[in-house]
């Protein structure tokens, strides 16, 4: 073994020095005759097409009384449209292996369409119908309502769900971000057909729309399809009234539950996607909790002490309140120690305990792994729509690694000091933690 081992280590080290450039995929900006825009990556190697679209808004259009409306509407758009009732619509989807689904979160309403090339005309027609002529028949409304309520009940005592929901409720009192986009049993029970109709009139408008397409379709073929699916929607509509907000923090909240393992959710303000410091924040998060086994949280909590199976963090780009959040799950006896370690690591980052080697390691991973995200149409379509939403430009894939590489150690220290603050952290603990004051 040792013989070939030496040779390979060297080749690895040499390869490291000349990090492979990203083979920039050729993304095109397609604008339909009617003015609908999409980012497209034409990739004919597999006879499939993936289209992802996103309308800004989502739960921002809800009030406390209608929480869950966006999600419920999303679950109903593929339950009958035009002259096809739910059974007819779903039979056409399933018999032709067309995957059409919708979802909503705190800032947007999204859709995904996947089809074999051979069935694409039908797939585009079903997507058009779903967006433009949803039926909202009584049977599917009651059925989806029952499913939503069952799901809410199922999650009622799930420690992961509880930790997340209590975090947002505590951080954002009196704000739409404090209300779960799943709603409550009470609000979901009260949603009526008129609410659904009113919601799509506000939500499904063209000036809120972003589209990403990848697969076996050319720009010339896509342009008329964009008009066909989206051209019939209103050009514009009233914007949701949501104010920017800073989360409350600096506290540890205990939600008692009889489980052997406590689940902890934590966080404080992050840095916005459009902020010039975003890439430095992205690297900082990789170093503390985004980098799996390379991250400080996993090293300290799992690898050195065996206190948890998972410990991680990420930047959560909520439109009106960017956050840095994370989680750890530890047996009840060791929760206090895990929380101490999170605070210690956050303090270390804020104090500038970041080396040139930390930065180089993060940059090598984040640039070298980027092409792995370009291997499936479904992944690419979702990446493209994200590029459009964040206004990153059609040539972003070619420039992206240069942004990562441009971050200096000074940038990293400055941005870590700006973002991390152990005293601002809000911790929510669900379980029976020992040695923690509620």
């Amino acid at each position: 073994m040792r013989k070939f081992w030496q040779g390979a280590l060297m080749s690895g080290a040499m390869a490291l020095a000349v990090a492979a450039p990203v083979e920039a995929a050729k993304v095109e900006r397609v604008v339909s005759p009617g003015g609908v825009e999409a980012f497209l990556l034409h990739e004919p190697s597999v006879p499939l097409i993936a289209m992802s679209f996103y309308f800004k808004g989502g739960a921002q259009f809800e009030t406390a009384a209608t929480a869950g409306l966006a999600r419920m509407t999303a679950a109903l758009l593929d339950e009958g449209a035009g002259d096809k009732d739910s059974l007819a619509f779903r039979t056409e989807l399933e018999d032709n292996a067309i995957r059409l689904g919708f979802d909503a979160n705190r800032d947007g309403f999204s859709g995904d369409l996947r089809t074999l090339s051979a069935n694409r005309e039908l797939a585009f027609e079903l997507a058009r119908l779903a967006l433009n002529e949803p039926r909202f028949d009584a049977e599917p409304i009651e059925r989806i309502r029952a499913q939503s309520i069952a799901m809410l009940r199922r999650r009622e005592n799930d420690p992961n769900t509880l930790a997340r929901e209590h975090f947002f409720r505590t951080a954002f009192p009196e704000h739409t971000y404090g209300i779960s986009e799943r709603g409550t049993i009470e609000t979901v029970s009260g949603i009526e057909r008129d609410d659904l109709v009113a919601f799509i009139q506000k939500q499904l408008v063209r000036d809120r729309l972003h589209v990403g397409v990848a697969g076996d379709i050319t720009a010339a073929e896509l342009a008329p399809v964009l008009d066909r699916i989206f051209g019939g929607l209103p050009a514009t509509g009233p914007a949701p009234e949501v104010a920017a907000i800073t989360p409350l923090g600096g506290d540890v909240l205990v939600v008692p539950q009889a489980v052997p393992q406590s689940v902890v959710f934590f966080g404080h303000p992050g840095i916005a996607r459009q902020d010039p410091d975003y890439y430095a924040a992205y690297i900082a998060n990789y170093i503390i909790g985004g980098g799996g086994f390379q991250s400080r949280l996993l090293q300290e909590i799992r690898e050195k002490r065996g206190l948890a199976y998972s410990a991680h963090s990420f930047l959560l780009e909520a439109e009106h309140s960017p956050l840095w959040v994370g989680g750890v799950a530890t047996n009840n006896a060791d929760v206090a120690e895990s929380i101490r370690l999170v605070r210690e690591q956050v303090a270390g980052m804020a104090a500038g305990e970041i080396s040139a080697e930390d930065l180089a390691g993060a940059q090598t991973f984040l640039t070298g792994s980027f092409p792995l995200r370009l291997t499936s149409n479904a992944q690419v379509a979702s990446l493209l729509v994200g590029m459009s939403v964040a206004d990153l430009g059609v040539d972003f894939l070619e420039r992206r690694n240069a942004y990562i590489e441009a971050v200096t150690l000074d940038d990293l220290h400055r941005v870590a000091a700006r973002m991390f603050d152990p005293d601002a952290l809000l911790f929510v603990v669900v379980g029976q933690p020992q040695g923690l004051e509620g």
Partner: protein
Amino acid sequence: MTLRSLFLATALGGAALAMPALAPTAKAQMFEPETFTLDNGMEVVVVTNRRAPVVSHWVWYRVGSADSPPGKSGLPHFVEHLMFKGTENLAPGEFSRTVARNGGTENAMTSNDFTAYFQNIAKDRLELVMTMEADRMANLRLTDAEVYPERDVVLEERRSRVDNDPGARLSEQINAALFLNHPYGNPVIGWYHEIESYSRADAEAFHAYWYHPTNAILIVVGDVDGAEVRTLAEATYGQIPGGTLRPRQRLVEPPPQVARRLVLEDARVSQPSLSRAYLAPSQRQAGWEKAHALDLFAEILGGGSTSRLYRELVVEKGLAASAGAFYRGTSYDETAFRLFAMPRQGVALEDLEAAMDAVLQEALDGGVTELEVERAKRRMVAEAVYARDSLSGAARIIGSALTAGLSVDDIELWPERVEAMTVEAVNTAARAVLRPERSVTGWLQAPTREGETG
């Protein structure tokens, strides 16, 4: 759509650790792989996909949790964790650090029948990861300082996956009741008290016995061809002595005699559910005709929102929030044909189960129809094309099939075999398997009597 797929994902969870439920064989497609065997007996499968300059590199061992030594359930999963803890050449954690520093992502997973390791990485780093993977196959070096904290990590993993989740606890109990003798009745992650008993010597002996090229399968998918992989494989894995192919000496399941019923009550359950498993043959045991017949029957009975169970229980009768069925023939020994349903508010599990049984009985007595079989075939064959839209998806399908005793042909011929199935074969296979004495039914509910807690 979102709500249904979430329910299904939850019901399917637990088939393999560290990954979402495996794509069933039914989702396979023709990958046109190249296959060859190294001199030391290591099988190699290469699927060329030149879409991006990257590869997905996997080594699959023909050993899984069902091959745990007696009293050490889950030991193969623990050994999987320890494979990241250092070798004669690499310090603990250095494997992962090197992969990350070269822009790669990696993980590993354990199921009943396999243990698999993978890295997704730029194609010019393939030699590096093959070298490191070969190194830990041959030269794993463990210390107490690494082994025992990791045992605590696995106990925490068990708490996260099972003990904190009443639904996962019920699934574990259903499997334990379904298999009277076969080790599939033990959880993949292991029983808590047996995890606590693992020693460094247990892990070392297990690794020494099972981790050989002869017992392993190399799968590479991506921007590479068979000749390139052969050269690299001979220089890395090819340098390790072959060892012997280890037989899977598992206890044999007796013919089931009686239906079993379980009720798990837990104060944290506010949404009840019911789940049933029938002991069913795997494709390796029964052959592809019977396995694909059960694939089709599961699709017709409970495969989607136009299936019989969904239409009857969720749409027409309004008793259930969700309902469905699935079968996974990719298993070395017996597997299960499973049904699940979640009642709407105010519906008793007893009534839901009776309605579910009525739908099942009608499908068995009257048989599914020619039209239903044709629709299901068309759907399943078309859906299989999606498996080609991912590098690691192809590797997962091939690896899980080969470690379940199937061949590359079983995957490649899948579409034409499904097309060839007859309605008679589907009904005959279903009637043989879906018999009460082969079943375990589990209810998950809140405590019904005062003072009881989970």
